[in-house]
Structure formats: structure tokens, C-alpha cells
């Protein structure tokens, strides 16, 4: 019984890429009968293993398509690994893609409660957090505006505030900080730092080696779905920069 908060063991993820999209019963049976139901196997991740303790922060680096997003989605519970096991001991607040958990027809205020519920908070808890969220996201004037009118920067601010207002055990951030102005990025980094001090484990994807070095203690370099290197952030980032 270890006190690792994240344990990833021999995880592999396979996608079946069908040559043509089959999404109706008619097509399915026709292709089945004709024998043209072919697909290619694509392994997005191969045999990934690592573990993180409480308060660790992991930066994921690698080229586009190396499997970083897939790994994050596995850790967030959005996908299930084809083989191997992913164990996350605690609550997860994911920030994968802007506007995660937002319903476009609802107002910002309604979405705050919806997003909170999605993350597992009760209405009462959200009542308590509400003002802090509005303050951090600086959206006081837009509370009754349907979010379909929001800019991507506003989405980022709102999403980040909601995800970080409680104290999740694991925070997953997938390139969300690239959107938003410099001031916002600073605010986010400050908050992330204080969360790290409070014991939150961070998983961070960024193309900026600088940000990774600043925020993370460890790093994982993914190349073509395989673990190229895992260890101290400075070692991994240096190796990655020199590749």
C-alpha cells in the first residue's frame, strides 16, 4: 500500500481506425456481409508506467501526436485504457479543452453550478464557492449572459476558476493557459503554486519548456506513444530540448 496518488501500470491505448465511418446499422451489416469491415490498429500509448505522490507535479512534454492528450484523458477518467491499469486516489479536476462541462444555452451563473456539479460538488458547496469563482474569473458583469457569447479567453478564466476553487487532489491542465492574456497566465500560475503547496498533484501539458520547468518537479517525455524519459524536470526538459 503506497501513498502514491497516481499509479499508472503498463498502460496501452489502442484506437481502431475504420477506413470509412460506419455509423448506421444498415452500413454495418452490409459491410459485414461484404467483408469490407476493415480497420487499422493505432496504438496511441504503449506500455506507460509511472507513479506520482501527493504534491508532485508532472509536466508532459513531447511532439504533437505523441499521446499526451490521450494520457491526460486516461488519467481524467474520460477514457479507459485498452490494457494496463490507471489508479487515481482522489478527486480530479480536469481542464481539458476550453469550455469543458459548459452548456452553451445556459448563462454563466447557471454554468458555474453545472460545472461544479460535474466536478462532484454539491449545490451547498457551490453556494459557498460562488463569489470566489466570480472574483477570480473577473466576470461579474457577465453572470447572466449565455456562455455561447463568450470568447475563448472568458471560457478559460471561468473554467480555471471553477476547477481550482475547491482543493482537488489532482489538477489536470492541458494547454489551457496558452489562451488568455499575460495577466491571467500569471494569476493562474500563482494559484497553481499555492495549490501545489496545499498538496494538490498537478499534471501539466505545455509547449513552453519554461512553464514546465517553473511549475513542475518531474517530467515525462512521450515519443510516439512510448515513454522516452521520466524523471527530474530539469533532466527531462534538457534532453527534450536537445533532441
Amino acid at each position, binding site marked *: 500500500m503506497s501513498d502514491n496518488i497516481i499509479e499508472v501500470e503498463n498502460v496501452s491505448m489502442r484506437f481502431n481506425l475504420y477506413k470509412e465511418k460506419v455509423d448506421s446499422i444498415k452500413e454495418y451489416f452490409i459491410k459485414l456481409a461484404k467483408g469490407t469491415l476493415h480497420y487499422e490498429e493505432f496504438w496511441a500509448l504503449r506500455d506507460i508506467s509511472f507513479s506520482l505522490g501527493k504534491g508532485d507535479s508532472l509536466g508532459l512534454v513531447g511532439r504533437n501526436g505523441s499521446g499526451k492528450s490521450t494520457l491526460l484523458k486516461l488519467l481524467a477518467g474520460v477514457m479507459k485504457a485498452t490494457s494496463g491499469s490507471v489508479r487515481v486516489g482522489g478527486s480530479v479536476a*480536469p481542464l481539458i479543452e476550453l469550455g469543458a462541462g459548459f452548456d452553451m444555452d445556459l448563462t454563466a451563473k447557471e454554468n458555474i453550478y453545472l460545472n461544479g456539479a460535474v466536478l462532484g460538488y454539491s449545490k451547498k458547496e457551490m453556494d459557498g464557492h460562488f463569489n470566489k469563482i466570480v472574483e477570480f474569473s473577473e466576470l461579474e458583469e457577465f453572470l447572466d449572459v449565455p456562455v455561447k457569447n463568450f470568447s475563448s479567453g472568458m471560457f478559460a478564466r471561468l473554467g480555471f476558476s471553477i476547477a481550482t476553487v475547491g482543493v482537488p487532489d489532482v489538477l489536470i491542465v492541458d494547454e489551457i493557459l496558452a489562451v488568455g492574456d499575460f495577466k491571467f497566465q500569471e494569476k493562474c500560475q500563482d494559484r497553481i503554486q499555492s495549490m501545489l503547496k496545499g498538496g494538490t498533484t498537478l499534471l501539466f501539458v505545455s509547449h513552453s519548456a519554461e512553464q514546465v520547468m517553473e511549475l513542475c518537479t518531474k517530467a515525462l517525455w512521450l515519443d510516439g506513444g512510448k515513454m522516452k524519459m521520466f524523471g527530474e524536470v530539469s533532466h527531462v526538459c534538457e534532453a527534450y530540448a536537445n533532441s
Partner: protein
Amino acid sequence: MVIPYVRGFFKYRSLLIEFVERDIKTRYRRSILGLLWTLLNPLLTMTVMTVVFSTLFRSNIENFPVYILSGYTIYNFFSESTNSAMNSVIGGSSLIKKVYIPKYLFPLSKVLSTVVNLIASFIALLLVMLFTKTTVTANVLLIIFPMLYLFLFSLGIGMILSSLALFFRDIIHLYGVLLTLWMYLTPLFYPLEILPAWTKVIVQINPLTSIIEYTRLITLYGAIPPLELNLICMIPGVISCAFGLWIFYNTQDKFILHM
């Protein structure tokens, strides 16, 4: 294996309430009459059906308005709840792609929000009963049982459909056709007795028929339905729910690959 599910359900009960509230709000946000429409809709349908069909069957069925409306509220709930549940997972894809949510919340919330509609139509039914001077006994409170059986049955079917529709989009259209056929195989506006033998067998097996029979016994006739009928109504509900959960559980990990 069951315990994590119960814990999970407890944790996400706020989300379930949010989904149901959002459904109900969206349903009535754009209509003028709003909640009043849930009362008017069954009343209007019943009036039209009574006028059209009572000349055909008046000799066979007394108290035609209550007869029709008791059947219509049940069928309408089934059709509405399963239809909206069928589209629920597809509609929730933006959430499912980004964050972990117990996916059964989608069909479940749709069926639950339709229950609100059902309660309103039962109120309309009560009004019609009073208007036609049907004796209203305390046995109408037994309505909770067919509601429960109907809920279970619709939930199971809804879960199966929500999963299937994601993988095979043409099911959405096919189900519409099936629902129409299903309506004719439910004794809404005709008595069971007039059917020829083979049709009667099919109509009897239809779980909606028995649930409607139950509803008619407690409204039209103020009776307490026999235990036998309770079993007949309960079994399809339990089987449909079990089957639905099984299919849902076995396919939900693949949902994201089809979004």
C-alpha cells in the same frame, strides 16, 4: 462491484438534479403557456380522440374519456421518455469527451424529467374523472405502482437505446417508426376483446397494455388490482432495467470512441 456504483451515485446526485432541472427549464423556457401546457396537452388529445373514436366503440366502452386518457398518459410517457433518453448520450458528448461523469446519468435524467410531465397528466386525468362524475376512490393513490413499473421499464429501454443510438445513428429514425407501431399495439382507444386471436397475443405481451390495465382498474373501476397483475407489470420493468444496465455497462467505455 456494486458499492463503488452506489458511492458514485451519491457523489453525483447534485449533477443528476442539475440535469433534471435543466431539462425542465429548457422544456418550458420558450413556450408561453409553459407548465400549463402539460395539463392542456393531454386534455386536448383526449377530447379529440373521444370525439373521433367514441362513435366506433361507444357500445363497448363506457366512460370513454377516462378510458382513453388513462391509456394515453401511460403511452405518452413511454414514448417521450425513451425518445429523449435515446438522444441523451449523443447530446452529452461534449461533457463526456472532457470530464468523467457516470454516463447512466444521461438517460436517467431524461426519464426523470419526463416523470414531472407524467404527474401533471395524472392531474389532468383526475380532473376528467371528476368532470365525468366517475367515482374517485382512495385506490387512485395506487397509481404510484404503475408509475414505478413504467419508470423501470422506460429507463431500461432508454438506456439500451441511448447506447445503441450512439453507435448506429439510424436507430433514431427506426425507433420513431417502431413507436408508432407500438401505439397501435396498445389498447388506447379500442377494447382488448375485439382483437383477433394472434393480434391479441401480441397486444397482451406488450408491457404497456398491462400497466394501462392497472391504471384503468384503479381509475375507471376504483378497484384494487390483483397481485397477479402487479407481477405482470413488474417483470418487464425489472428485466428491461437489468438488461439496460448490462448493455450500458458493457458498452459505455466505447462511447467516447464514437463521439
